[in-house]
């Protein structure tokens, strides 16, 4: 009972410490996701699908200011709402933003494909090097998304990875220093960690997966061994002692 109370107290103190120090450890959690490294000028600048209220505007600014020669837009798979006509396809809105913000039609390249996630977006981008083998590319996305985008580039395009830079288009939906205080910040940041885990699992190499499985098995084994020695052995010994003591009484 005393042991349980002590554990409970330690748990409560730990939670209290985490809460009191939240401004120390939560902002770095979001900052870790941002691996934006602009290397400009580039030949092509590409807004990853999604984030139409920020990414195409950032791309338009880069093209207009001469920091990118041309914009490219990834054509996404249509959603049921697109097919019903309730929502315009994302790539059409992106293209319209670029045109409205002063990017000439001749400077917009549409990249056809059947992309529905970051990894396949990056695979579609590879078609740029079919036209222009020496092209340099900047990918524009949300700050929290840059790490996964960079990871996808390194994994899906190892040959061209050093010709690609990832740039963060900041968003004004929430303040990144207090991301946990807003619904959007909380969802975007925490979901990004979940997605990173998923990418690590699905798009990693066979060797990496094997290493992960072995680690999990070893951790489970250690956990079972710890439980066995901590709880089962003492209980069995206590029962044995009780059985030995009983006839003496």
């Amino acid at each position, binding site marked *: 009972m005393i042991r349980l109370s002590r554990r409970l107290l330690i748990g409560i103190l730990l939670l209290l410490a985490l809460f009191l120090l939240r401004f120390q450890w939560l902002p770095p959690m979001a900052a870790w996701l941002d691996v934006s490294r*602009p290397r400009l000028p580039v030949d092509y600048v590409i807004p990853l699908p999604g984030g*139409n209220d920020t990414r195409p505007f950032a791309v338009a*600014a880069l093209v207009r200011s001469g920091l990118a020669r041309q914009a490219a837009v990834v054509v996404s798979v249509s959603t049921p709402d697109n097919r019903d006509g309730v929502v315009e396809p994302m790539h059409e809105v992106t293209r*319209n933003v670029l045109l409205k913000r002063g990017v000439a039609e001749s400077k917009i390249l549409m990249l056809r494909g059947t992309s529905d996630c970051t990894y396949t977006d990056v695979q579609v981008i590879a078609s740029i090097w079919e036209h222009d083998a020496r092209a340099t590319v900047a990918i524009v996305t949300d700050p929290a998304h840059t790490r996964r985008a960079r990871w996808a580039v390194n994994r899906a395009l190892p040959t061209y990875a050093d010709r690609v830079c990832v740039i963060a288009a900041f968003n*004004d939906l929430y303040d990144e220093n207090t991301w946990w205080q807003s619904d959007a910040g909380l969802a975007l940041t925490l979901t990004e960690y979940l997605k990173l885990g998923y990418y690590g699992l699905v798009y990693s190499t066979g060797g990496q997966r094997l290493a992960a499985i072995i680690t999990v098995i070893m951790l489970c084994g250690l956990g079972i061994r710890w439980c066995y020695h901590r709880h089962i052995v003492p209980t069995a010994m206590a029962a044995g002692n009780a059985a030995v003591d009983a006839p003496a009484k």
Partner: protein
Amino acid sequence: MRKSLFALASACAALAMLGWICPQVLVRGLVHADPPMTDADVLPLSGDNAMGEAIKQLVNCQPACLLLVEGAPPRTVQVQAKQSSSSRRQQLSIAAGIEPQRIVVLTAESRPLYPLQVIEAWLRAHPQRRLRVLQDEFSSRQLRVTLDRRLDPALSQRIAIQPLPDRRYSIGKGWINRLGVWRVFDAYLSLARSLLGIRSAEPPRYLSPDEYEQAFLDSLGLAP
């Protein structure tokens, strides 16, 4: 030996059952459906095919109105790269045979859109009317919790939530695909915030397209 094998097989079967039942239970915790109200106005708030469902219900329910909530225009609408969602929905509804006088656009200046204030104002201004809100199924319980916490019980009871399944992932179609898992995770975060009564902080000032582009170049240290 036979006993051990039987115990092992039973444990595996129990684990398999648990693995199948637990995700279903987990997801059902997000879904809330109120009993349907007849002659209620219809508000398609979120969810796949919300407009199609709203139109279907209104065609068969003559006096009821279609309510559309519109927030402050995003930059894509400001530069006319796309229509505002309410004007597009209005066009779709009229094309489907809903009379224009039955379509009401409720405007809110907030961004991101917090529709609760406009719903509350509508209910107070029309004390005889009731509202059927069409909401994405995984956000339906969160909406019910929010309505019950923030509105007077008398107002909250005049709102019936109808959860809408998504054609790409839903409980009925098996939600355990990539999009479904992200959505369930998001939905649980939002539900937890609503249950704890945590309100979202005010977002930073929303920049105009010119301001945004300038601030972006500044953030790179490349502003001309």
